[in-house]
């Protein structure tokens, strides 16, 4: 294991990207950070800039307005990085797939600019904090 991978797994800092979610998944992400689930014991820390982040937590369907922003955020994230698509909307767009303002799903947009991106999917509407932690563990285990 290289030093880079070891450091990445040891303390994956997360950045939260909302690209058109209804706020339910965002609340569950906040739940992960509370003392009850406390993802900080795994070294995960919510950071305010994608340049400091190792993991992107993407929620929402990716609306037309959000697509260029999502691309920019992914490009700014330090590599190697993992992407967690949280919620049904981010995984498959759910009921919003035929909607007039949807351009996603977000994993497709990230694959367009980086075909080798590490993307984990956490389905659910919204997913449980336990599921989000499991998704993070799975994403880090393939690095």
């Amino acid at each position: 294991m290289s030093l880079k991978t070891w450091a990445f797994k040891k303390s994956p800092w997360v950045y939260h990207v909302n690209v058109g979610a209804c706020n339910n998944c965002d609340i569950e992400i906040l739940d992960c950070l509370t003392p009850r689930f406390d993802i900080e014991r795994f070294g995960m820390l919510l950071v305010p800039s994608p340049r400091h982040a190792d993991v992107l937590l993407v929620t929402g369907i990716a609306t037309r307005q959000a697509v260029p922003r999502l691309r920019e955020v992914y490009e700014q994230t330090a590599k190697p990085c993992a992407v967690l698509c949280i919620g049904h909307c981010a995984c498959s767009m759910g009921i919003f797939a035929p909607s007039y303002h949807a351009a996603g799903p977000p994993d497709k947009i990230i694959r367009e600019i980086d075909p080798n991106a590490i993307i984990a999917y956490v389905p659910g509407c919204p997913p449980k904090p336990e599921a989000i932690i499991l998704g993070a563990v799975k994403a880090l285990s393939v690095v």
Partner: protein
Amino acid sequence: MQRDELVEKITKDLDGKLENVERPSGKRAYLYVHPKRSLEVNRYLYELGGRLATATGVDSRDYIEVLYHYCFDSMNIVVTVKTRAFKPEVEIDSVAQVFPGAEWIEREIHDLLGVKFKDHPRLERLILSDDWEEGVYPYRRDYKK
């Protein structure tokens, strides 16, 4: 003042300016108004003490109906002003000069249904994305993705 007295008073004061008055239930009253008179009627309801709760737009094929909902909270009644803006111009007077708070809902209706609000102080894009084409309105019945 009771609900029925209020509707009676509105009907009497606006005699000749309304096309029709409907009472679907005790708590609701619909006033059908020609687009030319809509500003006048809205201003009257404002002076009467109505609170503009919201506005709605509906595409009904030949025309787009814009509805202004006024609450009279002490009487527990909602008075709705229904104005039909006929296609293809789809023009109607803006009430933003009477209610500054109506600016954003009118901009939203303009975005989604393409209703042109005359004398609106700032009729710009509000909720659609920056790269959305001009003249394409997603809530119109003939819209295809």
